[in-house]
């Protein structure tokens, strides 16, 4: 890999929202505008910091910053490579619309405990960036655990029975996963004496194949809980009791993507494609994930609650990302990693729409949406765009990533996975189009306002922005943020390194 730049920018990108979190707490409920000001200021600064890292990374450089040594050979270290940067850029970019949207959402619904809400939000973002920029497994684990804890107050935000139960379930799943990861990382460290991510893996040659397969299973189980891989997905629909911006954050940017990110990090940067080919486990891994893709799609069909349906769609798409990466070919990896970014934009739009509908009309079931498209045209237009993207229809960005995934499946001569990907696209159509159909073409329910009556501007503008962004990314994958180049560089690093 190219040249290494030592810079504190990654650290500041993590710290800025942590500092903002404490400022939010200190400002408190009395000065709402100032408090929200901190959020937005931090979001903008963070975006600026992360954005300024794109150029050097694309030039083939790596940005590194070592804070303090934790173990012999392992430090609290940030290292920004192309793959980490991709996640970082997605998180930092989407924090801006989410912040505006959140402000609109909590003010419209007069939520309680807003300071706690924004505090945890900022902490989540801080740790998500920490996960993205972590230079080794231990740093990754540290931020991953902070993310787990910081999300819990958001999940239980409503403080009613289902929220508390959802929160408990969430904690049980994620903390157990954290323990599994701790054990897995401990074993890795005792085998290799290092934890630093290396393109193409560093664990090859240490330990017997059986142990390595067990280790891979532990890693995938540990990160897979947050990524919602099938036997461990139960917490995700339950966590849908959280306020909608939180669900958007959980499903598009923060928690679940951190899980996927961790899986991909482990597959590509700890084990590496070569070792996985040698061990012959990639087909098993891909099989498990493909199972998740199909079953989650089927389960989504049965959900009437809009957010739960979106949750299963998330499980489906996350599995698709991991599927792409675990097929280990150039195009499938490109598609998988690109989908990590694209899915974030599409899914956050969908959740924003769901939240806007709920904030305006207090409706949250698919069957209640009849004719609502006339009352909330912008929201429904955005919803349609994002849903089309998830189904893989051009010109929305989802098409590109699915295209590469399909290419990759063909490339590996595993036609079954091609079928899986196509089936999942079919299922996407099957569970999204009824919503759109209900919204536009069914006879309006009696309580639907005859004229345009949208949610507050603070909510509608962000969701339109993200929807438009989805289309722009679909036409020009390199627009503004150079996603496609970053992804290509990341894949090239892994395969070439």
């Amino acid at each position, binding site marked *: 890999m190219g040249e290494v730049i030592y810079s504190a920018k990654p650290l500041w990108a993590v710290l800025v929202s942590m500092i903002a979190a404490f400022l939010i707490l200190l400002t408190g409920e009395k000065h709402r505008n100032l408090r929200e000001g901190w959020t937005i200021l931090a979001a903008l600064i963070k975006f600026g910091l992360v954005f300024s890292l794109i150029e050097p990374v694309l030039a083939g450089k790596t940005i590194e910053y070592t804070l303090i040594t934790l173990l012999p050979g392992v430090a609290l270290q940030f290292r920004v490579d192309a793959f980490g940067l991709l996640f970082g850029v997605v998180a930092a970019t989407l924090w801006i619309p989410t912040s505006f949207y959140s402000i609109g959402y909590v003010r419209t*619904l*007069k939520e*309680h405990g807003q300071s706690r809400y924004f505090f945890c939000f900022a902490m989540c973002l801080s740790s998500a960036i920490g996960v993205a920029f972590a230079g080794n497994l231990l740093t990754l684990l540290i931020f991953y*655990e*902070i993310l787990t*804890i910081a999300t819990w107050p958001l999940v239980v935000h409503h403080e009613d*029975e289902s929220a508390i139960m959802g*929160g408990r379930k969430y904690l049980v799943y994620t903390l157990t996963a954290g*323990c*599994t990861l701790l054990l897995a990382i401990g074993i890795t460290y005792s085998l290799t004496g290092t934890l630093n991510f290396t393109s193409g893996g560093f664990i090859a040659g240490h330990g017997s194949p059986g142990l390595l397969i067990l280790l891979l299973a532990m890693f995938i189980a540990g990160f897979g809980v947050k990524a919602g891989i099938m036997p461990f997905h139960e917490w995700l629909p339950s966590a849908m009791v959280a306020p909608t911006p939180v669900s958007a954050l959980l499903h598009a940017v923060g928690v679940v993507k951190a899980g996927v990110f961790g899986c991909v990090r482990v597959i590509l940067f700890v084990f590496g494609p070569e070792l996985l080919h040698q061990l012959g486990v990639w087909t098993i891994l891909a099989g498990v994930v493909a199972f998740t893709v199909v079953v989650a799609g089927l389960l989504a069909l049965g959900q009437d609650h809009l957010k739960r349906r979106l949750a299963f769609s998330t499980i489906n798409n996350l599995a698709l990302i991991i599927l792409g990466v675990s097929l280990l070919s150039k195009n499938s990896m490109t598609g998988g990693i690109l989908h990590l970014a694209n899915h974030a934009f599409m899914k956050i739009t969908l959740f924003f729409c769901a939240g806007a509908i709920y904030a305006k009309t207090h409706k949250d079931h698919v069957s209640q949406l009849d004719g609502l498209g006339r009352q909330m045209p912008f929201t429904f237009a955005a919803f349609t765009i994002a849903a089309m993207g998830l189904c893989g229809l051009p010109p929305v960005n989802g098409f590109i990533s699915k295209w590469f995934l399909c290419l990759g499946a063909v490339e590996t001569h595993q036609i079954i996975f091609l079928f899986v990907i196509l089936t999942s696209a079919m299922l996407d159509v099957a569970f999204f189009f009824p919503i759109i159909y209900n919204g536009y073409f069914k006879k309006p329910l009696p309580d639907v306002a005859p004229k345009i009556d949208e949610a507050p501007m603070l909510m509608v503008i962000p969701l339109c922005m993200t929807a438009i962004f989805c289309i722009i990314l679909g036409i020009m994958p390199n627009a503004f943020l150079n996603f496609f180049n970053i992804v290509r560089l990341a894949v090239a690093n892994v395969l070439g390194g």
Partner: protein
Amino acid sequence: MIDQFPALIIVAPLLGAFLTPIIGWRYRQLCRPWALMILAIPLYAAGGALLQVIRSGPFGYNLGGWAPPWGIEYRIDHLSGLMLVLIAAIGLLAAINAKPGVSMDLKGKEPHFYTLLLLQITGLMGIVITGDLFNIFVFLEISSLSGYGLIAHGEDGAPMATFNYIIIGTIGASFYLLGVGYLYMATGSLNIADLAAILPNLYHSKMILVGFAFFTTGVAIKMGLFPLHVWMPDAYTTAPGPVSTLIAPLMTKVAAYIMIRIMFTLFQPDFSISVVPVATILGWMAVVAIIVGGIKALAQTDIKRMVTYIMIAEVGYIVMGVSVMNRPGLTGAILHIVNDACMIFGLFLIIGAISYKGHGREIYHFQNLNKKMPFTMAAFVIVALSMCGIPPACGFFSKWYLIMGTIVAKQWVFSITLLCSSLVNAVLFFRIIEKAYLAPLGGGAHGHDDDHEEEVIVRDEAPASMLIPILITAAIIIILGPLSGKIIAAVIQHAVPAAF
């Protein structure tokens, strides 16, 4: 001045203790400032001694100028330097914290309280600093006796709990003394360094085996290792708030220190591996301690009693780290002595503050406590997360090393026990956090701001003298985590025997 640090560490609190009743006779209010002033001296001296050890290695100090095997030697190495700083710091913070609790529970007895507090600190520091086995016994008794006196003054069941503690504690101390006797009989020496040189030739003598057995049993009693823990929950639960805050975090940890000294300085590590299978036995006892401690803690509704059971599990952690007999394990054990002392101290401080404010200790009393005592509860969350092993709090790092130790030793049952125990801790603490921060289950959730006016909860925070130690401890818990790498590099790695 620097040469006299070791003497100063003991003599300052000792003289301070002798003078406290005299001062308190006339001016009872002066006792606390006096005790604080006195306690600052050993903290300063211990810090200086630790720095000197880091800079130029372990050093000894011959009391009265008699050469070691004949006279008593104070010996400060990396481990004891670290323990001294820990004890002095916690002692000082506990003394700062004691004021409101003492004026509430022990009114009119300030001189006695502060005298005993200073004696307790003297005893604990003495155990750590001395290089003479019999001297350890004497200081052990000083700290135990002051502890008996302090604990017996607690709530309803305290005298009975103390009496049991006296009986069992005396068995422990006497077993320790017997161990000293057997070693003396076999070698003729009492000095640890001298004994360590003589003993390897005698490892198969039955006297040494019996002596070692009595040592370990005696120390395990003082430490509250599982089957010998019976005195601990009652004694620490019924003790007055400021007292359990002082004694609970330190006594068990100092006993663990003695165990590490015996197993790794007095004896060679192979003694506990090959001559007698102590390491294996201790390891499995630790597993049982962690499991039983966790289960018993789950069964408690009184949070103070719950914490005492958690302490039993935490003692299990330390013993497990010792028992795996490798470098990461022992590093983790020593790190956990420090971290766990801070965490348990923090928990007892918080419990003390909550009780002082008139709230009960049952879990349901925690309802809405975050609005009444926001800072205390924020500190509680930090300590709780540290206990669950969530980074970057310090609990994560000691747990990491302990798990590394079990992995290196290939003791998978131990690793899994440790991990399960963090999950149990998560359950224990999150049920309290849930109670404190969230609306009651099924009790009409106040989802939105609209029905806010029905109940206004007034903030009623603990007094500054309690809050400051709480916040300092919480800060230390967070700072110690990322710093653990440095602490290990500077101090702990030298405390682990080079053979590992």
